[in-house]
């Protein structure tokens, strides 16, 4: 087996047993990147120090097996979405405005991964500024879906999801405003976790919509997602919205919790939207049957039609985008505002409109009120239920070019991710089958800070099924 195909868990076991070195593991990933990046366009920048970092990891392993306690991701190569600042390494958010930007400081997520001794392979392609759900708004060309190059990998963390699916990397980091981790994870047939808002620091992440931005892992298994989240989660004095609550994510505990007896799950009927691909819907319902077989108790519930979330999310996100992108003036860093692409103009200008005097109440304030309705409903259903299950995307990956269909393409395809993002909940996307050789995903949503429970049923599902082990044939 090629080393780049390993999961984090397998790679850690191999490194501990000295079956291979971190340098060999890292070189295997770099080899796959060199071989496949021309087709996929998943990496924008490679880390020239990757091999040095791997060698340092090998020295630590040689020094003491106890190093794995101190450095939980010791020697594991990974890919980082290009909106996380990396001190000294170019960071563009896939936007020409930041074409030449070399950060002078690091995002907390990157700093924590560095502290855990993971090895950075490089920075991945994304929709420019994370504005999109196909990676097509990238100023550096779109990323392709490893399952079928004519299809989009989804977005905005499309490069990260494609990198994991094509085994260019052992794991990757993405970020969500609404659906940008779970969506591409689904379309690329890998696992993606959106942690609770405030569970993972936004410090040093190029902001999109600050009231929902949530960094999260894209991995080959749910277990791996737990391993990564455990490292990146937790209070950060540099981000005042991070929670002081202790991190209770315990990957080891997942193995002993494969019986789901007594866990109450709800399926909102409104989430089986009319846009849903019938074959994808069938697969999602089969996955939910499987959860019942594993012991979950299913209830059919009713929530606000997710079509309302499209409006709420569009207004909130574009308003916050218009504010967040006001800072780019090309003076302290980057290029002038004339370098903004069409999609940035589309979002900033509409956000400026919805925040304008005379329209604020009609749009922005109305959206924030409906947001309250959505949150109240979730609070109500979580009084009787542990988790909510359903589809994450209305169907499998769309063809490259699909984003041209609508000025709200991203907001429309992400409608099933938007309610939980608006409410700041945690959600997991994991593979549950194929339609026309393209992956389909199941979504598991939990209340704020219920990551362990969400991961628990996701892990149990993956123990009982093998969808997550399927590889895109061209990259296997």
């Amino acid at each position, binding site marked *: 087996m090629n080393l780049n195909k390993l999961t984090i868990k397998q790679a850690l076991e191999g490194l501990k047993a000295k079956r291979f070195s971190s340098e060999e593991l890292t070189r295997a990933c770099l080899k796959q990147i060199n071989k496949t990046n021309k087709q996929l366009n998943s990496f924008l920048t490679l880390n020239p120090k990757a091999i040095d970092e791997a060698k340092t990891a090998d020295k630590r392993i040689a020094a003491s097996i106890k190093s794995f306690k101190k450095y939980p991701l010791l020697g594991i190569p990974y890919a980082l979405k290009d909106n996380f600042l990396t001190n000294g390494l170019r960071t563009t958010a896939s936007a020409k405005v930041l074409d030449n930007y070399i950060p002078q400081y690091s995002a907390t997520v990157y700093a924590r991964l560095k502290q855990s001794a993971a090895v950075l392979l490089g920075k991945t392609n994304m929709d420019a500024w994370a504005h999109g759900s196909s990676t097509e708004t990238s100023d550096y060309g779109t990323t392709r879906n490893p399952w079928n190059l004519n299809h989009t990998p989804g977005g905005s963390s499309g490069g990260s999801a494609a990198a994991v699916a094509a085994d260019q990397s052992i794991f990757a980091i993405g970020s969500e405003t609404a659906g940008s981790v779970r969506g591409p994870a689904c379309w690329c047939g890998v696992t993606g976790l959106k942690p609770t808002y405030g569970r993972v620091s936004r410090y040093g992440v190029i902001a999109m919509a600050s009231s929902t931005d949530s960094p999260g892992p894209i991995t080959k298994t749910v277990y791996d997602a737990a391993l990564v989240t455990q490292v990146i989660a937790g209070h950060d004095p540099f981000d*005042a919205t991070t929670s002081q609550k202790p991190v209770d994510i315990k990957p080891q505990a997942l193995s002993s919790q494969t019986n789901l007896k007594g866990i109450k799950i709800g399926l909102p009927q409104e989430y089986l939207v009319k846009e849903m691909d019938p074959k994808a819907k069938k697969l999602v319902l089969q996955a939910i049957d499987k959860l019942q077989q594993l012991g979950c108790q299913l209830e059919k519930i009713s929530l606000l039609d997710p079509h309302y979330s*499209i409006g709420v999310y569009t207004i909130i996100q574009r308003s916050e985008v218009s504010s967040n992108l006001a800072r780019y003036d090309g003076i302290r860093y980057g290029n002038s505002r004339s370098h903004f692409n069409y999609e940035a103009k589309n979002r900033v200008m509409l956000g400026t409109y919805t925040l304008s005097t005379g329209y604020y109440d009609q749009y922005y304030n109305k959206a924030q009120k*409906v947001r309250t309705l959505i949150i109240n409903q979730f609070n109500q259903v979580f009084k009787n239920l542990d988790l909510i299950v359903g589809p994450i995307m209305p169907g499998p990956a769309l063809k490259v070019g699909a984003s041209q269909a609508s000025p709200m393409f991203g907001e429309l395809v992400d409608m099933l991710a938007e309610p939980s993002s608006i409410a*700041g909940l945690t959600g997991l996307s994991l593979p549950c089958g194929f339609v026309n050789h393209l992956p389909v995903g199941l979504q598991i949503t939990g209340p704020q800070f219920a990551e362990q429970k969400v991961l628990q049923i996701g892990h149990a599902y993956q123990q009982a099924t093998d969808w997550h082990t399927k590889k895109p044939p061209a990259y296997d």
Partner: protein
Amino acid sequence: MSKKVDVNHLAKLSQMTVTSQQAKKLSTGFSETLKTISLLQKLDTSKVSSTFQVTGLKNIFRQDKINQARTLSQKQALSNAKKKYKGYFVIPAIFK
């Protein structure tokens, strides 16, 4: 929402340069977007307040102390600037 959005005014407010072709496409797109989001008006929100953030956290303060670990030197701060003069950023003139 039948009122047409003034694209050029919005471009000016948000300091974006927009070609006439883009302005046309943006204008059509904005009408379509505003139509889609007008669905929200169907919901009764007269009895709910607005939610601006979801953490429930209030008044998060820090000590008013300089953290040397994240203070940039003048050289570092200027490292990405295209125009600088004697250790300062050069900005476009404000007064004519």
